[in-house]
């Protein structure tokens, strides 16, 4: 039929020159290329918002001053003053999204005039949120701590008598104390130095290498107050702990109490990708009892009762299975259904429990599908609607959307569903991920990928620049971080540190079983971590920190004051986003990108020819030179501290921080990070072509994208080299002779016969598979069965009240079963406010201004009406534990009746309510008083007696004149957001550790009543004897302690994070 050939056609159409112009031009690119502008010398009025000067001009860029325009009434009247900028990139530190920033430094004054986005950063694409731009307000904070402080000799912790000290003195004192501890060399000593960190915002430097090089098991994180339940379900299911959704290409986005703009991880980056997807027609579903910003814009808002999200997930799976509309190909290929269906003993167990009516005789996939139908038959939409207390038609709509979206479904379930509820891991990572897995929506475009696929961790990889590279595995297992009651906890039980230290009975119980648990932490570092304020049971922390028999030397490392700082020995002022080095990468999209946070003033000075006297203290010297204060950075501090701990190298620590280029001297940041960034093959290759070093590339551009379109990593074959006859795994070549295949699992047999799984066989090839013991997505977790939790080894949930009593470990502590009084409510305290991030934002006047409010208690209109509560009323919120029935205390909040929270559920964000016990600190010999969090906290009076604490606000925020950075802070005299800054709730909450993951379960049952005449908004009362009883009840009644199989402290395949622990310490001591 073809009349002409292709070439003839094209010849013929030569006559149609201009034919393309006849088209209607209906198409437009949805995403403009975000590129640095070309060939523009000076731009007064950028034509688009993402305008950036041409890169080659970044070292010398002139632009008119904004205030000049205002003063002089427009351009060119008397000529325009141009600011002579040098533009230095860095990375924001105000949340974990790690967006790119550029610091615009005025070369005449050596001050940063503004922070903007970084167009080279492929994650944030030149965009920032309010917190990013507010980095400037934090830098020139009037209450910035200008030099290191030390508790005044003779004073007690909490008295707040401080003297000025030097960095040299601090290094010497801390180094000496650590040396004394480490020289003891026994097992206990390796548990008595602890570095406890909040959100570190970096990939590896402190996280791994620093503490590891000390040889102690002393890295303690904040994870268990943040995300352990979010992680645990995913670890059990796929072996990775955090989803990395491809929002931008998704068709259905399900945010389960985790919102791009309120509560999720990656704020404006995720929000941008979600907006991109919605512009392409994607549907947005929000499951949350509270109407968040995201819920307000969603196609479907499902206000499920807290902790019942699991019922919705299982109901969806049930119907998909019943109607056989799930992705059979994916499920058959990647679920560990063979392991499940062949474990007849376990199937019998399920039958005994009444979840299964029949055990199949065969082991086929069809048998598995038949079991699924049987297992999930009772999870109907009607049942789920009743459990979640929602209309059933919402579930019909959700189901339709799921079918429509197919394998392009993304889900984020990081916040309240996980962190709020006991058993939240089952509702989040376990059944949430399973739902996506049933649709085949794991790994592909528009689906949900994984943290480890999309993150670059190089911060600990600078070893090539040092005399010694990788430290040995640590020879200790610190029970103060990994208590035996929670053998599978996802990360350390950090918020329990004072509870564990102060509990002699607990320690003795385990000592009798051969464990060596210290009764004191000799040296304690706290970095970007404010446990007194952010942790539950904060006054327990105050009591422990004040006790010098429990905490030896305590060091608070922070750019700004915080509640915990009042109770420490040293306050060391560390750098902010533009004042420190860090490699920082996050899984915000299916790419591998990294940013480079750096001290921008130092870099600018160096580019302009300045040289430090001591290259290993260059950041400190630079900050002093430009008048920022004696502000240092953690990286250089820790390198120098290693030399202070181990001056002669006898402890074996110094070598990890001694420069290979200059033996005997500390490694410099340039050397260290060049070695680290050289580990990126594509970056190294490009730098070779460009004739620059990887450090220089990152210093100048601040960001790099090593890989794009990172999808379906589980399907990727292990690279094979026929010449070497070896497979590549984790960067190393493994000879074929050391590889053993058992069933479909592929192992590396190491020297001594130790075997390590490296992949699975699919279609005759060795592919990555999943990081679980089976190499597959574990519908059935044999680990949970073996570690004493057989009833939760599959995605499951109790079907009725009787089962909820038996399966209490996965039933929320605020389940509606517990709401028996007419004024009982579930309290959600953990939604974020998008302009505040935990401890980090109190030092930004701009964020305080836009964030000022009285942090109200949201209560459903009709509930309020029923209780006679009106807008603005003070209400007493009494906290009651549902396991023990114990009431621990109360707080007084201001009520705001609203339709934006569901009936029976109240909400009050714990991101507000900062407090101070002094307004200013007087330092002998220093002319000014140091202000203490004056823009975002209230002055309080704390009274205590026999463990009963009462706190009342004495004074709110008020205007003041700043002596520090006066040019930048003229407006502090115009502060208008007076009064309270919200109510401090956390201290009233007892520690409620999830029995499996160890997560502190934040939601609380509360009884609400109108406050009495003697109560004032902001009051809190707590009895820490009662919080203690509650904690012990959760620990003793709900957990199933180690050891597990083979006398292990923890399943071996769930590696301890951060650094390796020597094999022998994984086991319980023999009886």
């Amino acid at each position: 039929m073809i009349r002409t050939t292709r070439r003839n056609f094209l010849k013929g159409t030569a006559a149609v020159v201009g034919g393309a112009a006849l088209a209607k031009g209906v198409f437009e690119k949805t995403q403009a290329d975000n590129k640095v502008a070309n060939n523009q010398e000076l731009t007064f009025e950028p034509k688009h918002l993402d305008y950036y000067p041409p890169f080659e001009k970044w070292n010398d860029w002139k632009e008119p001053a904004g205030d000049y325009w205002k003063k002089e009434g427009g351009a060119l009247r008397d000529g325009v003053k141009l600011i002579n900028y040098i533009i230095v990139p860095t990375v924001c530190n105000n949340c974990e999204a790690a967006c790119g920033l550029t610091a615009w430094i005025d070369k005449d004054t050596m001050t940063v005039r503004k922070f903007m986005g970084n167009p080279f950063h492929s994650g944030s694409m030149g965009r920032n949120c309010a917190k990013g731009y507010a980095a400037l307000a934090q830098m020139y904070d009037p209450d910035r701590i200008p030099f290191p402080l030390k508790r005044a000799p003779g004073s007690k912790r909490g008295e707040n008598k401080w003297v000025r000290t030097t960095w040299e003195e601090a290094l010497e004192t801390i180094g000496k104390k650590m040396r004394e501890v480490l020289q003891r060399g026994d097992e206990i000593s390796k548990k008595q130095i602890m570095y406890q960190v909040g959100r570190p915002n970096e990939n590896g430097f402190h996280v791994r290498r620093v503490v590891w090089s000390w040889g102690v098991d002393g890295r303690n994180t904040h994870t268990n107050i943040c995300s352990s339940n979010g992680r645990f379900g995913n670890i059990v299911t796929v072996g990775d702990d955090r989803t990395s959704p491809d929002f931008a290409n998704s068709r259905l986005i399900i945010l389960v109490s985790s919102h791009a703009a309120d509560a999720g991880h990656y704020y404006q980056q995720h929000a941008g990708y979600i907006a991109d997807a919605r512009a392409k027609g994607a549907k947005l579903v929000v499951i949350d009892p509270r109407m968040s910003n995201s819920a307000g814009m969603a196609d479907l808002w499902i206000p499920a009762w807290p902790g019942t999200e699991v019922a919705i997930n299982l109901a969806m799976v049930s119907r998909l299975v019943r109607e056989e509309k799930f992705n059979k190909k994916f499920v058959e290929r990647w679920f560990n259904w063979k392991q499940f269906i062949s474990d007849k003993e376990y199937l019998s167990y399920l039958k005994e429990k009444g979840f299964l009516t029949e055990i199949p005789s065969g082991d086929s996939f069809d048998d598995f599908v038949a079991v699924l139908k049987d297992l999930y038959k009772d999870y109907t939409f009607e049942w789920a609607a009743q459990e979640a207390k929602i209309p059933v038609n919402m579930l019909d709509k959700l189901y339709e959307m799921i079918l429509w979206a197919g394998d392009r479904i993304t889900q984020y379930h990081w916040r309240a569903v996980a962190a709020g509820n006991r058993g939240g891991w089952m509702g989040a990572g376990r059944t949430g991920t399973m739902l996506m897995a049933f649709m085949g929506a794991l790994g592909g475009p528009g689906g949900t990928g994984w943290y480890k696929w999309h993150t670059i961790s190089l911060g600990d990889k600078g070893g090539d620049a040092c005399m010694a590279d990788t430290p040995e595995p640590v020879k200790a297992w610190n029970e103060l971080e990994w208590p035996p009651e929670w053998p599978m906890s996802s990360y350390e039980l950090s918020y329990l540190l004072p509870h564990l230290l102060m509990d002699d009975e607990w320690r003795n119980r385990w000592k009798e079983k051969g464990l060596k648990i210290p009764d004191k932490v000799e040296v304690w570092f706290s970095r970007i971590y404010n446990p007194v304020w952010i942790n539950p049971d904060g006054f327990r922390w105050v009591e422990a920190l004040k006790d010098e028999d429990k905490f030896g030397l305590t060091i608070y490392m922070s750019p700004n004051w915080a509640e915990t700082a009042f109770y420490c020995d040293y306050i060391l002022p560390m750098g902010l986003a533009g004042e420190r080095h860090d490699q920082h990468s996050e899984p915000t999209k299916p790419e591998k990108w990294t940013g480079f946070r750096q001290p921008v003033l130092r870099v600018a000075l160096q580019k302009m020819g300045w040289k430090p006297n001591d290259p290993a203290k260059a950041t400190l010297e630079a900050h002093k030179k430009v008048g920022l204060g004696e502000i240092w950075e953690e990286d250089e501090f820790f390198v120098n501290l290693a030399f202070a701990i181990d001056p002669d190298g006898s402890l074996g620590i110094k070598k990890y921080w001694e420069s290979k280029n200059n033996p005997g001297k500390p490694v410099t940041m340039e050397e260290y990070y060049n070695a680290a960034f050289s580990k990126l093959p594509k970056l190294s290759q490009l730098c070779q072509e460009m004739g620059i070093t990887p450090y220089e590339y990152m210093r100048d551009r601040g960001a790099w994208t090593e890989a794009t379109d990172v999808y379906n990593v589980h399907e990727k074959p292990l690279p094979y080299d026929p010449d070497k006859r070896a497979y590549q795994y984790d960067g190393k070549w493994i000879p074929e002779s050391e590889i053993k295949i058992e069933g479909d699992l592929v192992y590396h047999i190491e020297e001594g016969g130790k075997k390590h799984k490296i992949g699975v066989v699919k279609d005759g090839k060795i592919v990555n598979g999943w990081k679980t013991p089976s190499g597959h997505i574990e519908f059935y977790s044999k680990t949970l069965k073996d570690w004493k939790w057989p009833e939760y080894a599959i995605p499951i949930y109790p079907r009725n009240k009787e089962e909820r009593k038996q399966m209490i470990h996965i039933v929320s502590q605020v389940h509606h079963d517990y709401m028996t009084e007419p004024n009982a409510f579930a309290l959600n305290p953990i939604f974020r406010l998008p302009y505040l991030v935990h401890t980090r934002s109190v030092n930004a006047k701009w964020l305080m201004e836009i964030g000022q409010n009285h942090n109200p208690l949201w209560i459903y209109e009709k509930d309020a009406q029923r209780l006679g509560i009106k807008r603005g009323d003070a209400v007493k919120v009494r906290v009651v534990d549902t396991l023990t029935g114990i009431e621990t205390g109360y707080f007084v909040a201001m009520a705001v009746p609203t339709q934006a929270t569901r009936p029976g559920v109240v909400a009050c964000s714990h991101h507000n309510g900062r407090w101070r016990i002094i307004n200013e600190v007087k330092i002998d010999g220093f002319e000014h008083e140091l202000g203490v969090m004056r823009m975002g906290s209230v002055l309080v009076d704390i009274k205590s007696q026999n463990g009963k604490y009462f706190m009342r606000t004495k004074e709110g925020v008020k205007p003041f004149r700043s002596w520090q950075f006066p040019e930048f802070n003229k407006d502090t005299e115009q502060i208008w957001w007076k009064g309270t800054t919200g109510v401090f709730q956390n201290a009233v909450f007892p520690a409620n550790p999830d029995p499996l993951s160890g997560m502190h379960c934040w939601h609380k049952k509360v009884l609400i009543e109108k406050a009495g005449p003697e109560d004032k908004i902001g009051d809190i009362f707590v009895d820490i004897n009662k919080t203690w009883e509650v904690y012990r009840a959760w620990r003793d009644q709900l957990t199933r302690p180690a050891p597990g199989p083979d006398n292990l402290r923890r399943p071996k395949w769930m590696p301890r994070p951060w650094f390796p622990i020597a094999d022998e310490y994984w086991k319980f001591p023999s009886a």
Partner: protein
Amino acid sequence: MNEKIRENQARQNMYGFLSRLLIEEVDYNLLENIKNTPSLMELFPNTANWETFLQKDTKSLIDEELNVDFTTVFLLNVYPYESVFMNDEGHINPSLTNPTLQFYLEHGYEIDLNKTRVLSPDHIAVEMEFMITLINDQLNAYSMFNKEEEIKALQTQKEFMEKHLLKWGVIYLLAARDMAETPFYYDLCQTTLEFLLSDYEYIVSQLQEVTV
């Protein structure tokens, strides 16, 4: 200009020319241009021998013959929308759930139908216009020596052809051709049909060349 650029620009021109004729009634200037350009008339072999075409003045030809046929074929009988052909119900689907629209959006393009009189983004002429934008991406990548992007742009063209334009366009054009009462629209359908088939071959051959 090298041959590759020339040929791909010719493809764009061809898509532009044919989509223009399929999207709206022909206008005076365009028809005059066709009439007076022998190489263009080669694309309309039956029309060249159609007496009415040769005898009537251009305006009357449009008003009395071609517009009537355009209405009969494209507006009344054989709806030129993918959703009509691919859905069981035979309805036009102009909503966000339209898979063709999804394809545009998911490949970074949005569409402004106000610039045309079509009812849905899956009109055959709009789909052909989409090919022009994809070829543009390909040429941009080629001129920047970005082989990876060039391959991606070619693969997208192939995928779009396979999943959309070719999948239903062939059946549609055959049906429309048989419904046409004038040789002009008969030829237009036939030529478009042949062009699409040959262009698919060309995309495949370019992909082979560039991936070698």
